[in-house]
C-alpha cells in the first residue's frame, strides 16, 4: 500500500517534500549551530578562537578553560548552591503541588469552587515586584538562603495542570480504596501518586529548570555571595568580566594571554553550567508534549 503510493508520487510532490526537508534541516542547524560553536570553542586554542579561525571543528585542542572553571572558588560555591536549591526546591515544589492538586480534583471537596478561585486569581493579578519585595522584607527573609526556597514554592498554573491530570484518572480506584478503609492521605500516597508519574515528571521539569536558571530572585533578594546561585556568578564572570585580577600581573604579554584565556573560559563555563540540563534533557523530552497539552486545556 505504502509502496504503491510511493511509486505514484508525482514530481510536484517530490519537489514539495524536498523543500520541506531542506527548510527543516535549516531550522535544525540554526538551532544547533550556536550551541555547537560554544562547545567547540570551549576546547579550542583561545588565540585561534578569538582570531576567528574556529568555525565548526576544534582548532588547537586544549582543556585549560575547563581547568580554570573547576579551579574557581565562586563557581564551585554557586554550582553547589544551585544544586541544593534545585534539588531541595523542586522536591518541596512538587510535594506541595501534588498536595494541593489532589484535593482540588475531588468533586466531593466542600468549598471546592472557593479554593479554585483562590488559587486561580494569582495567575491574573499580582502585587508586582515592589509590594512583594516589601512583604518579603517585612518577614525578614531578605538575604537568607530560605527565600530562594520559599519564594515560588508553588505556582497556581502548575496546581491546575496537576489537578486536571489527577481528575482524569479513573475515580473508581479511589472509591474502592475508600471502601476498604483507606484514608485520604493513603489514597493520595498509595493510589494517586503512583498513577501520576507523567505529571510528576512534567512538574519536576518545570520547577527544576526554573530553579536552575533562576537569576532574578537571587539578584533581588540575596546579596550574600555564599548563598548566591550559579546564574548570578555566571553573570558576573560572563557579562561583567569580574574574573580577571589584573593587579598582580605586570607583563603585558601575560595580561594579553590572560584576557584570551578569560574569553575561552567563558565558553567552558557555559558548557559546565548547562551540563545538568543536558543530562536531564533526553529523559524528560518525551514529557514535553504532555506537559504543554495538559497546561493548555486547563479550563
Amino acid at each position, binding site marked *: 500500500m505504502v509502496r504503491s503510493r510511493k511509486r505514484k508520487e508525482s514530481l510536484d510532490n517530490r519537489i*514539495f517534500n524536498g523543500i520541506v526537508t531542506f527548510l527543516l534541516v535549516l531550522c535544525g542547524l540554526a538551532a544547533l549551530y550556536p550551541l555547537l560553536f560554544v562547545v567547540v570553542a570551549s576546547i579550542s586554542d583561545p588565540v585561534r578562537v578569538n582570531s576567528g579561525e574556529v568555525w565548526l571543528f576544534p582548532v588547537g585542542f586544549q582543556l585549560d578553560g575547563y581547568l580554570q572553571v573547576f579551579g574557581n572558588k565562586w563557581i564551585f560555591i554557586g554550582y553547589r548552591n544551585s544544586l541544593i536549591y534545585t534539588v531541595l526546591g523542586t522536591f518541596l515544589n512538587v510535594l506541595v503541588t501534588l498536595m494541593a492538586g489532589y484535593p482540588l480534583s475531588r468533586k466531593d471537596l466542600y468549598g471546592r469552587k472557593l479554593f479554585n478561585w483562590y488559587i486561580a486569581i494569582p495567575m491574573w493579578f499580582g502585587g508586582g515586584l515592589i509590594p512583594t519585595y*516589601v*512583604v518579603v522584607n517585612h518577614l525578614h527573609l531578605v538575604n537568607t538562603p530560605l527565600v530562594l526556597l520559599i519564594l515560588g514554592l508553588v505556582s497556581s498554573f502548575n496546581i491546575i495542570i496537576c489537578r486536571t491530570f489527577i481528575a482524569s484518572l479513573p475515580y473508581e480506584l479511589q472509591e474502592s480504596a475508600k471502601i476498604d478503609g483507606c484514608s485520604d492521605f493513603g489514597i493520595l500516597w498509595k493510589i494517586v501518586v503512583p498513577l501520576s508519574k507523567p505529571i510528576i515528571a512534567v512538574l519536576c521539569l518545570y520547577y527544576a529548570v526554573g530553579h536552575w536558571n533562576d537569576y532574578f530572585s537571587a539578584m533581588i533578594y540575596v546579596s550574600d555571595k555564599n548563598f548566591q546561585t550559579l546564574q548570578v556568578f555566571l553573570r558576573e564572570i560572563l557579562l561583567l568580566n569580574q574574573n580577571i585580577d589584573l593587579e598582580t600581573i605586570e607583563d603585558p604579554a601575560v595580561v594579553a594571554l590572560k584576557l584570551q584565556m578569560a574569553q575561552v573560559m567563558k565558553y567552558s563555563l557555559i558548557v559546565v553550567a548547562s551540563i545538568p540540563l543536558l543530562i536531564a534533557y533526553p529523559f524528560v523530552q518525551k514529557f514535553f508534549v504532555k506537559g504543554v497539552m495538559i497546561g493548555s486545556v486547563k479550563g
Partner: protein
Amino acid sequence: MTKFLESNKSAIKRENAVRDKGGKRSAFSRLRRCWQLYLLLLPTVVYLFIFNYLPMAGIQIAFRDYKFSRGIWDSAWVGLKHFRTFFESVQFESLMLNTVKISVYALLFGFPFPIILALLLNECRSMKLKKTVQTLTYAPYFISTVVMVSMLSMFLSPSTGIVNKAISLLGGTPYDFMGSAKAFRSIYVISGIWQGTGWSSIIFIAALAGIDPQLHEAAEIDGANRLQRIWHINLPGILPTAVIVFIMNCGSIMSVGFEKVYLMQNSMNQSTSEIIATYVYKMGIQKAQYSYTTAIGLFNSLINLVLLLIVNHISKKVSEISVF
C-alpha cells in the same frame, strides 16, 4: 420480623432527621469528613496568602508615602501623587515607547515562526528527521537568560565575536551590536525567536495532529495539492489555537521579559533598552522608592489588563474565539 423491619425503618428515619437538621450541621460534618483534604491544601493556601494576596493588599502603598518603620497600613495617604509624578516625569514618554515597541515587535515577528515550524514538521514524511529537528529546536528554550545574553555578547563582540568575523570575511566592517541603541530591539527579537520557536510550536503541532484526516482525504480526492491543503485545511484547523495564543500574548504585552532586557542593557543602548520593568527595578529596589515604583507597576498591569480585554473583545466579535 415485622417489628424488626419497623424498628429498622424508624432508625433510618431518625438518621435522616439528624442529617436534615439544618444546613449548618451537615456543612460542618462535611468539613469534618474532608479534614485531611483541607490539611493537604493548607500549605498552598498559606503560601498564596502571604506571597500573593498580601502583596496585592500592599499595592496600596502606590497611594501612600511608604515608610518601612510605619508599615504598609500606617504610612501617609497621598492619593494619586506618585502617578502624577510618573506621568509628568521626563522618562515617561521614552519608557512607554520602548516598552510598547519592544513587545509589539517581539509579538508580531515572533508569532508566525512557531506556526511555520509546526506546519513544516507536520508535512515531514520522515519520522527520524522530524524527531531530530524537534529535539534540536526545543533545546534552546532551556538555556538560562544569563547564558543566552552571554552568548549574544560573545558572538556579537566587535573584536572577537564570530558574527563580526563572518561579516569581515564577507567584506563588511565589524559592528558593535551590543553597544548600539539601534540594534538592541532586533537582537532582542531575533534571539527570542531562536530560543522560543521550538517550544512554542509544540501546541500547534498538537493542534495539527487533532485535525480530522478525513478532511485531507476528501481534499486529495478533489485534486487539492499539498500547498492548497495546508492553506485550506491545516491553517483554518489551527486558527482557534493561534488566536488564543495571540490573545494571551497580547495580555502580557507590557510585561516584557525583564531579565533579558536588564542583562542586555548597557550605557550605550540605554536610549532604547530602558523599559518600565527595568526602571521600576532600578528606582524601586536599588533606590528604595517603593511607593513611586509600585504606582508605576500598577499602571503597567492596568494597561496589560485593558489590552487583554480589548483584544479578547475584538476577537470575540470577529472570529467568535475568546479566552473569557
